[in-house]
């Protein structure tokens, strides 16, 4: 039995930068192992878990009946940094994913050298920077990671290409909210895991492919390739979205703790959106509608155009301070997301795909 809070804290305490997801993938695989029938790893590093449908039990010797497939994708990779140079005991870095120079000064980090080294992401004082830098957020090329070791030791232990991940500890806040780095998108991995757990009590008609995808933060690498492998009939991306709070007060922000957000826009197939909404209503579960006028900013953007095209939807968990080391999510929203996905799957009839037609007249 997976307990949400400790499981999620474990997930965000593990490194797993884009294309280097192995540490977190191992723990997700352990959690999924008893919940799925098959586990595999894709060529680009996504974790695929298959829970076969529970209605068409294959009879020995009979021709295999193909069941419709749903793919649920939650990216597991995290943003971070990579070493570019070691300079007199200090480490220079570049970013992996979208890092904001305004929010990273003097953060604890871990340098994954020949062994893991605790470090500080330091911004040099203005006196050591070019004059035009004065008073402004320090540009990435000037950041230094300090591991507090003598230069000779750093030279031995660290080299270009080594990864640097955030090391802020998970923080329990009031109102069943949790703060930490990498909640984008480990919160969704946790929601997907809860959904798999709920499916243990469901005899679903569809094959369920749970995917912890790789490389979302850099190139949507997992999202383009896993659906090609799996060829689902429909696909749902689970990701985080912006929650209202300091810095976000307009239509792009959704209530924190007010339920998951169902995406609406060009990346979304209207029929799946509608079914998700009806499911939330039937569950008497609060939900919000996330307006995505263009790129959804999620795996759905890629999945929709894989092969001959896939009907896709997005379910999002509101999160404050995205891509800072202190992202905040509501545990209730994560639990609701897991429950909604499980119920959505439980309701899928074998002919659902045939029934989702464009409402053109």
């Amino acid at each position: 039995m997976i307990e949400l809070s400790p499981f999620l804290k474990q997930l965000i305490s593990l490194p797993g930068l884009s294309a280097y997801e192995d540490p977190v993938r191992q723990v997700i695989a352990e959690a999924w192992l008893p919940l799925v029938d098959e586990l595999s790893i894709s060529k680009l590093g996504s974790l695929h878990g298959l829970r076969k449908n529970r209605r068409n039990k294959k009879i020995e010797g009979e021709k295999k009946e193909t069941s419709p497939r749903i793919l649920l994708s939650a990216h597991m990779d995290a943003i971070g940094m990579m070493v570019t140079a070691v300079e007199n005991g200090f480490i220079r870095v570049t970013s992996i994913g979208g890092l904001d120079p305004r929010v990273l000064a003097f953060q604890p980090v871990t340098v994954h050298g020949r062994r893991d080294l605790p470090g500080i992401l330091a911004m040099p004082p203005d006196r050591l920077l070019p004059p035009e830098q004065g008073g402004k957020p320090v540009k990435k090329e000037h950041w230094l990671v300090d591991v507090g070791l003598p230069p000779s030791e750093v030279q031995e232990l660290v080299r270009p290409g080594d990864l640097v991940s955030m090391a802020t500890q998970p923080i329990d806040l009031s109102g069943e909210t949790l703060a930490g780095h990498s909640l984008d998108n480990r919160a969704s991995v946790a929601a997907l895991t809860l959904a798999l757990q709920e499916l243990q009590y469901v005899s679903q008609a569809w094959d369920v492919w749970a995917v912890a995808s790789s490389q979302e933060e850099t190139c949507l690498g997992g999202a383009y390739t896993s659906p090609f492998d799996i060829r689902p009939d429909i696909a749902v991306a689970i990701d985080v979205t912006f929650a209202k709070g300091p810095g976000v007060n307009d239509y792009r922000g959704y209530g924190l703790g007010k339920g998951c957000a169902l995406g609406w826009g060009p990346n979304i197939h209207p029929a799946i959106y509608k079914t998700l909404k009806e499911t939330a209503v039937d569950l008497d579960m609060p939900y919000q509608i996330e307006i995505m006028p263009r790129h959804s900013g999620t795996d759905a953007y890629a999945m929709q155009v894989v092969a001959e095209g896939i009907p896709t939807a997005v379910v999002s968990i509101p999160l404050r301070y995205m891509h800072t080391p202190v992202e905040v999510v509501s545990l209730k929203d994560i639990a609701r997301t897991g429950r909604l996905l499980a119920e959505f799957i439980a309701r899928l009839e074998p002919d659902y795909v045939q029934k989702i037609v464009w409402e053109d007249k």
Partner: protein
Amino acid sequence: MMSVSPGTPTVNIGLLERLTNAIAVSGDEREVRSIVLEEVQSIAEDMRIDALGNVLVTRRAKTSPFLKVMVAAHMDEVGFMIVDEDEGGLYRFAVVGGMDSRLLPGKAVLVGKDHLPGVIGARPIHLSESSDLERAIPVDSLRIDLGTGGAGKAQPGDRAGFATRFQQSGPSLIAKALDNRLGVAALIELVKNPLDHIELQAAFTVQEEIGLRGAGVAAYAMNPDRAIVIDSTPAFDLPVWDAAENYQYNTRLGAGPAIYTADAGTLSDPRLVSHLIETAEAEGIPYQLRQPGGGGTDAGAIHRQRAGIPTVSLSVPGRYAHTPILLARVSDWQNTLALVYHALRRLHPSLLTAERS
């Protein structure tokens, strides 16, 4: 750990860990004060807490004549005060002490006496224009977020400090508030290791970060012959952006205690500067001269008290002062303690009548 000559007190890392994890924003030094009291009250001949909250401790001399030497270390740290509550567990705050606003977003803090966890977030990069990334986020747009259940849990007036936990990595210490818990911890060891010919007047001071306010009244009350201030000063010994030689390092990590000749508030007493240097050389203790210039310590208030009190400062060099996460070397800290201890041991009343030059 480096070898130390017999009799030299040694630093206590466990004590430092407790001191740095405690929160003592200027004006509310209670948490650090209670650790100081716990450590020294059973051994001090005289100890009191004054009107501002300074802890003033006396270890009496056992021989005569003796010198009255004040050794001061400030207990307070930079932090925040809650000034207003918005809806939904969000709080406005003011910065207490000198802090660069660029380092505030993305930090974990602890609020109030019960250390309620909170975070200082920021607008996501996804919703920011590229020109926004070139500007620091103004402090008045930031909030401390206690979570959706945080409404009413903090009040205006509550203090908040950074939530960073102490850790040790090889030769280095990584923690918040090493400025100046390194000094406080060293001073506690001096109280525990008295010298017969010195009346040690240990002042654990308050409100240094907002204007050296505790040290002034402590010096008045103690009325010492001489004063030594132990603090932590920035080491800017980082690479320069264009790979030029760094001539503005202030101090260097690993080079030993930094002796002050001049800062923005004090010209150190030259006899005491010489005494520290001679002591270091005689005892084989590494030392460095802090680059004269800005900054300051409690010495700024002490040396102008009463009819004047000859004073010198020395600091443990520390990187990233006044941020949530500082880094210092155990060896520099130990050598600072050793240098003050041996400087006191070698002090002779004749120093009082020596010429200034």
